[in-house]
């Protein structure tokens, strides 16, 4: 569950926190595309490293590391299955290793890019940016709610685990299948609790006239400023630069 810490918005005063979500979203989209576009592990490393200066400037290193650490297990899985798959298909060990490395770096890059986005963007700013991009409010709000309740869910998961461990549940015991089954007493209360909560939050929202107007107003509007345009420009420029590696130099 710790991996979720790497995606929770925390208020901050850095420049990155203040940048318009639309610029940051552009960065995410462009660089996500790059991770899919390339297979060369070195280029993928470059794509990954694009997030490093952002992490440094926004001072989110602690939490960002959590997202990487938390996904290491998953990355190991990816590497192993990919390895087996490639060896099975082509018999080439070296090919399997390089492919596995590329896959892993790609995954880390994706995690990193999304992590820096969610760590520095408030759910409401994101919602507002979506609304200003003409996405219907209901969809934007769904996103908002999901983000807002991630910390609540992770907190609850921890409490539930404590409660079940207090009844003798040993999460680490048993073979792989047993360990997966050990999660049932944790997931079920979490899911049921989420459903209950959804109803209650819906009640609370309706009680504040949610749905009263087709077009609701907003206390804060997002306006693109110089730094937002600059960030956008840098993102596009780096994107094009990396893209040229393939188009001009033919690197895959």
């Amino acid at each position: 569950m710790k991996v979720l810490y790497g995606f929770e918005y925390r208020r901050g005063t850095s420049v990155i926190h203040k940048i318009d979500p639309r610029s940051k979203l552009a960065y995410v989209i462009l660089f996500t595309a790059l991770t899919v576009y390339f297979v060369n592990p070195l280029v993928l490393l470059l794509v990954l490293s694009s997030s490093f200066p952002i992490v440094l400037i926004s001072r989110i290193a602690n939490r960002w590391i959590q997202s990487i650490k938390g996904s290491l297990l998953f990355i190991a899985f990816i590497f192993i299955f990919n390895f087996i798959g490639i060896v099975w298909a082509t018999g080439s060990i070296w090919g399997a290793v390089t492919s596995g490395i590329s896959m892993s770096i790609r995954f880390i890059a994706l995690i990193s890019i999304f992590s820096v986005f969610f760590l520095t963007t408030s759910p409401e700013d994101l919602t507002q940016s979506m609304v200003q991009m003409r996405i219907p409010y209901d969809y934007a709000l769904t996103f908002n709610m999901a983000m807002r309740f991630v910390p609540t869910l992770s907190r609850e998961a921890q409490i539930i685990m404590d409660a079940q461990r207090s009844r003798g549940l040993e999460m680490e015991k048993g073979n792989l299948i047993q360990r997966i089954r050990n999660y049932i007493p944790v997931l079920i209360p979490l899911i049921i609790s989420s459903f209950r909560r959804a109803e209650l939050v819906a009640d609370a929202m309706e009680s504040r006239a949610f749905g009263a107007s087709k077009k609701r107003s907003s206390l804060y509007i997002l306006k693109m400023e110089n730094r937002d345009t600059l960030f956008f420009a840098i993102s596009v420029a780096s994107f094009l630069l990396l893209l040229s590696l393939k188009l001009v130099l033919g690197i895959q």
Partner: protein
Amino acid sequence: MILFEDVSYSYAPGRYALEHVNLSIGEAELVAILGENGAGKTTLVKHINGLLRPQIGKVTVYGIDTKTSTVAALARKVGLVFQNPDHQLFAETVEKELAFALVNFGMPLLGTSSGVDWAIKEFELNQYRERPPFLLSGGERKRLALASVLCYNPQILILDEPTTGQDSRQKSRLANLLKRLNREGKTVIVVTHDMEFVADFIPRVVMLSKGRVIAEGLAEEILTNRELLMSASLLPPQLAELSWDLTLKKPSIDLEQVISEASSLLGGSPR
């Protein structure tokens, strides 16, 4: 026998949730851990079944250092009932829910020593035996959560805020159950900020404030100590307030005593 020796614990660097806690709770005690929200009560009791281990100091339960034991091993002797029953209930039927801990501890499910049958009888759950727990009402779920911990017969029972959302009849029933379990030899620890419940039913109190134990002893004495309550940001129980308003020489949290004193102030005898 629970022993805290100079225990300190912090969740985040710089802020201590527990500081230099020294505490001993003996066999068959009935004690309340009292304090405002954030005083460290839940943190304290989580050390008793090993969910948390002290960063400084030592916690021993029945002579075993919690640092050397697993939560499961400690949980076998220490039953902890969490505040929100919905954080525990997950099984397909009430019966399976009750059996969960027994299965984990390798205890028998059937037969005369079965905790499941005992719990069903004790908590009047027979009509719900085959029903899913989440279809029960709020109060019933709370009882079920307690039942599912008691059914494996832990020697120490800890309840975290058991009175939230309960009406006065349910609180009386709970108090009677706790007193009976205590008479049968169990150590019962109630974590709460419900001053009335403690004043009415629990004889011994440990008072926490900002991570420290600031008082320990008889409820009758601690809950009538104005300065102590104020320093812990706790509201006094109603009878204590009444005692002070009546300027009784010996403030009390015992209803009969207050009535008797008030009656003599009136110059007559009570009905």
